[in-house]
């Protein structure tokens, strides 16, 4: 069979396996074996899976993901998420929609120490949703805002998606991390502004919270300071070249443990729970990455990425047209697929194309993360929506989906802004020399 036809047939088969609920990593690895065997022979096809799995699992670069995940899970058991929420509440609680705005602010700050969307959504959801329920917030607004703000976890550094993108495309992790800061802050501000406008127009959606004293406000600031110290340790560590991403994440994790011990809030059981959660999350992430590597190897031997680039070059297609086509494809696929699987599957195909028409790789990384953020909340497969569905007891999934639409619109606006003003993503990385 012609390699291109084979690739199309097997990709369709892989999507069918996804729909039949085969674990995504397993399906990609299996299809990769079949495809590679068909083109290069059974022996190499069977060997490639073992080698790819071992190469990914033993990659020093990927241990940064392990450490960032551990940092995020321990931060939850150390009570940092709770303190960030309290800090947000003391600042914004009295505003219309104040608890929802506090939640968004806390999510943005928690994103600065946690690189995963679902971990951020789960951590903040467990803290913020009971409070919003207590103050009789509209269910759709409350759950929608946590699901959407949780997605900031992959835009505001550290970010597992930026890490994987950087490793796969051999771009500077530090530049990618720093490129997400301004868009992340803008998006958090858009979310907060949206909540404010919605609640001013319809005060019943979100009654204001109770008053807070100055003492509580000052106490709340300590929650922000510890998160800020951790963020600066990690980001400045990478930015100034003190640490590799793995060591920056390990230093951040050690910082979380020290904070937990000093505050006497990290118990032995909490530490074990944090490690247990991190093992589970790290495992399913790495299985997806490894599976995608096997599938990516198959795609490479089909020569499809090169053919796609040659075809676009021969057609003399406008670079904006190429970008819009790629964005549309990402948006559609992201509605059905896990964020990480989407990235690792599509980068080998679209990254050479994007480079060939002259787009900046760092900027494209940011655009891609924003698209992935849309994917984690957009129906029908919004991972964050499922996470919040698990945390918010008794709220129907349709209500959560109803709540995410205003925030989805904010993400579209941010994507448009990034296209019009690329410097929003590329200005900060321009100060890095490596």
């Amino acid at each position, binding site marked *: 069979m012609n390699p291109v036809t084979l690739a199309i047939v097997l990709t369709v088969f892989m999507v069918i396996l996804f729909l039949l609920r085969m674990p995504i990593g397993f399906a990609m690895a299996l299809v990769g074996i079949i495809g590679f065997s068909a083109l290069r022979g059974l022996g190499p096809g069977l060997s490639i899976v073992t080698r790819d799995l071992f190469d990914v*699992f033993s990659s020093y670069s990927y241990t940064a993901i392990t450490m960032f995940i551990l940092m995020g899970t321990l931060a939850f058991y150390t009570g940092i998420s709770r303190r960030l929420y309290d800090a947000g509440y003391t600042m914004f609680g009295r505003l219309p929609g104040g608890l929802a705005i506090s939640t968004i602010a806390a999510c943005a700050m928690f994103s600065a120490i946690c690189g995963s969307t679902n971990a951020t959504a789960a951590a903040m959801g467990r803290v913020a949703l009971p409070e919003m329920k207590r103050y009789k917030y509209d269910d759709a607004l409350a759950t929608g805002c946590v699901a959407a703000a949780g997605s900031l976890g992959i835009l505001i550094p550290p970010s597992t998606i930026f890490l994987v993108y950087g490793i796969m495309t051999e771009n500077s992790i530090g530049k990618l991390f720093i490129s997400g800061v301004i868009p992340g802050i803008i998006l958090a501000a858009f979310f907060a502004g949206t909540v404010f406008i919605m609640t001013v127009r319809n005060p019943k959606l979100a009654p204001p919270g109770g008053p807070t004293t100055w003492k509580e406000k000052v106490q709340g600031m300590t929650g922000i300071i510890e998160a800020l110290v951790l963020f600066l340790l990690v980001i400045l560590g990478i930015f100034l070249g003190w640490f590799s991403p793995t060591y920056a994440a*390990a230093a951040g994790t050690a910082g979380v443990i020290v904070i937990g011990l000093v505050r006497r809030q990290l118990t032995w059981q909490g530490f074990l729970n944090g490690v247990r959660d991190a093992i589970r999350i790290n495992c*399913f992430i790495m*299985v997806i990455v490894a599976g995608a590597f096997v599938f990516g190897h198959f795609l490479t031997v089909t020569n499809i990425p090169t053919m796609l680039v040659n075809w676009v070059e021969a057609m003399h297609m406008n670079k904006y047209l190429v970008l819009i086509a790629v964005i549309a494809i990402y948006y559609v696929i992201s509605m059905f697929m896990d964020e990480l699987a989407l990235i690792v599957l599509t980068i080998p195909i679209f990254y050479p194309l994007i480079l060939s028409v002259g787009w900046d790789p760092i900027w494209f990384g940011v655009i891609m993360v924003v698209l992935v953020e849309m994917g984690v909340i957009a129906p029908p497969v919004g991972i964050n929506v499922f996470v919040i569905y698990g945390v918010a007891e008794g709220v129907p999934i349709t209500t959560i989906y109803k709540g995410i639409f205003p925030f989805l619109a904010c993400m579209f606006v941010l994507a448009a802004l990034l296209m019009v003003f690329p410097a929003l993503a590329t200005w900060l990385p321009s100060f890095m020399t490596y």
Partner: protein
Amino acid sequence: MGKFDKFMTPLSKWFHVIAGIGMIYVLLISVADIIMNKVFKDPINWAFDSIGLVAVIAIVFAIPEVQVNHGHIEVEVLEARLSRFWRKIIGLFVNVLGIILWSIVAWRSFLYGIDILRSGEVSMTVEMPIYPFIWFQGICAVAVTLVLLLQTINHFRMRTR
């Protein structure tokens, strides 16, 4: 069947503990190397190699337990719309494919480990042997295969009841 179940469940849990030890090791060695490097200007020269290799333990030993709890990421769009009968049939089909996949990984990991042992390939900086870690991957692939087999048998039993 009960004995098989009673064997696999604690085995997966013990593997999970080993994965946890691997993860804590990566954390401790990373922090120790930072301190040795930045404070004492004397980096641990085996840190880089051992972090990469022990990370394998932190991942592969977790796979069986994650599979026991159906923790791997799946797409749940279609399943909810199917009848119970078709869900069972599809579940069986997907599990069998999983068994084939992990059997290949197990078999080929042992062969790959033997190749590496014979060729004398070691890690780059401090020449640590790599083959035990490839075999760990093989052992865990066997465990995942057994977990999938157990889940398939349980699946079939539930269907026939």
